[in-house]
């Protein structure tokens, strides 16, 4: 319910910004009513969102949610069944070649010609784009300089992914699409990739990425869109989403069934028993005093008192409700 409300409000903002889009440059990507099905599978079942200039926007969602289908429609790699898209002023499907001169793309599962080295790959793309060859600089940026002369097939997964980023950067785009840039990388390599993404953001690039990693979305993104079953079920800043969809703060306090029932009766707050404690999803700090009073009145000894906040991950699992799908 709340999810729908949030996206509708986003939608309104979006419609307004769309009207002014030609004058203001602060929206890089906008999509309205995006749909795509493969035979009986509704991979994308009506998605609306926008990405503002200079922000990092993450599409989060379980496997098969429709992230890649969405991003590839934005990249002009797939034709939408319905909806309209504007990427940096272009219709990606009709204007694919002109748009791609302005944007950089790492597709999911980036791959390259096996016996070509990173240096050669970057020179090749530079010639194709008609720009000066910055292979040294780009390889430096992603920390791949020492692999300049190693053939692609001999690079590690993380090094391949870094080359993907270099190739996406060849035409010095202001807008980058990164589909799962860190999937399959070890924690160290992922953090390296994060550093690069932060560097790019600091240079003012707009970045749309997809990921399965909640903490990655949380640390990197200005805003997050949670996609499930082809729909955008939540979008906003991580804090917004936690606030909107999460229960906010949780008070863990000593108690039992009886106490839980009393608390629920008195405050109407959701309350669960957890061993010798109860967990109450509080809505404001004033709830705490009231709950403590009830506990004291019940004669329960106060051994535990802890206030915790729900993480994006917990909220995500609650929204998506398909824990087993998350890697």
């Amino acid at each position: 319910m709340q999810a729908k409300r949030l996206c509708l409000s986003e939608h309104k903002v979006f419609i307004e910004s769309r009207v002014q889009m030609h004058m203001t440059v602060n929206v890089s990507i906008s999509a309205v009513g995006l749909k795509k099905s493969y035979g009986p599978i509704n991979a994308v079942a009506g998605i609306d969102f926008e990405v503002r200039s200079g922000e990092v926007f993450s599409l989060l969602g379980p496997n098969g949610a429709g992230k890649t289908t969405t991003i590839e429609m934005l990249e002009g790699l797939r034709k939408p069944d319905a909806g309209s898209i504007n990427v940096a002023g272009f219709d990606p499907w009709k204007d694919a070649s002109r748009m791609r001169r302005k944007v950089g793309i790492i597709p999911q599962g980036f791959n390259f010609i096996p016996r070509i080295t990173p240096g050669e790959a970057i020179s090749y793309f530079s010639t194709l784009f008609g720009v000066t060859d910055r292979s040294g600089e780009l390889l430096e940026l992603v920390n791949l300089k020492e692999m300049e002369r190693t053939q692609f097939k001999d690079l590690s997964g993380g090094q391949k992914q870094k080359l993907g980023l270099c190739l996406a950067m060849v035409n010095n785009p202001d807008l980058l699409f990164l589909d799962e840039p860190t999937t399959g990388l070890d924690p160290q390599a992922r953090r390296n990739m994060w550093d690069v993404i932060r560097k790019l953001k600091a240079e003012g690039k707009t970045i749309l990425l997809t990921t399965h990693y909640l903490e990655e979305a949380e640390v990197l993104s200005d805003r997050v869109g949670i996609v499930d079953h082809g729909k955008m079920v939540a979008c906003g800043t991580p804090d917004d989403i936690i606030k909107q969809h999460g229960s906010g703060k949780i008070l863990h306090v000593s108690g039992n069934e009886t106490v839980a029932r009393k608390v629920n009766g008195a405050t109407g707050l959701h309350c669960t028993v957890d061993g010798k404690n109860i967990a109450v999803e509080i809505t404001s700090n004033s709830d705490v005093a009231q709950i403590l009073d009830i506990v004291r009145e019940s004669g329960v000894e106060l051994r535990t008192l802890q206030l915790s906040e729900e993480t994006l991950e917990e909220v995500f699992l609650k929204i998506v409700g398909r824990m087993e799908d998350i890697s």
Partner: protein
Amino acid sequence: MKLKNIIADLNVYGKNFVRSREGLFFTFVFPIVLIAIFGSIFSGNGGGSVPLYVQNLDSSSQAAQQLLAGLNSTHLVAISFIPSGANVTTYVSAHSITAALVIPSSFGRSVTTGGTVYLPFYNNPAVSSSQIAGQAIGSVIQQLNFNLSNAHDSIHVQPYTDSVVAQGYVDFLIPGLIGFTILTTPMFSVTFIVSNYKKDKIFRQLSLTPLTRGEWLMSKFLWYIIISGLSAILMIGTGVLLFKARVTVDLYVIPLVLIGVFMFVSLGTFAGSVARTEEGAAVIGNIVTFPMMFLSGTFFPISIMPQWLQTVAHFLPLYYVIDGLNAVMVYTNYTAAGIDILVALAITIAFFILAMLTFSWKEA
């Protein structure tokens, strides 16, 4: 179509190609190995006896029997007989014979009376088996001359090397194997590359750049021209130096090689595009390639095949390339070559259209 894009892609594709050992082996080593193997087998360089056809028109004479016995005792030749009623020139050309000796009806009489007699010898000095037969005949006749008439030589061999004598097998092998390379190198590698780049999403990656499908194809075409050309030069060199092949290399060879390469780059692109998987592509590639590999005059002239197979050969695109190359390199018959070029060009245009209709970088 931008030349700089084509060259940039050619550079990368070529590097990727030459860094693969298989690619280099099949392009350069394999055809030379084939020439060496087939050349040795059929030119009689492999030891053993070589075929010699004899038409004995003097079978009742003792001198003729002595000559044949002498030839047999050299162990250099295996004698077969041409029927005495047959016209030797027709027989020789019809049976692709490279060494045929005629013993004239006057042979015995001339030998006993001490008169001079000439033995026509149809041969092809470019073929080593023919040379060996000639040496065997020469040595036996020298011996006979010495034994029979203690005077000066009365028996002479009269060599005929005009065009009725079959061309050397190696002469056919060179155009055949050039055709073989023009077929197999682009067909196998382009079919594979197109299906593999599709599966491994390399086309998707290339489609993110300003490179076009047409530029990519043009670069493949240029690449296979370069390597087929080099491979052809190597094969001609090997054939001429090692096996004394007599072939004419002139400008007419160029359009045939160009058209042939374009034909099979297009066909390979088509095969790789219609296949759903890499394995499927390999199957389609093999089905299309194998009949052509053997039945288009690659390893032997199609004239030695049964009539029905010769008819089949006319339906194989490679036939026109090899027939054209034979027309230029072996027979220097430019009219025949011109017709082959036109037919091959028409087939190539058809294949190119099929390729462009099915070759796509988009998944939609």
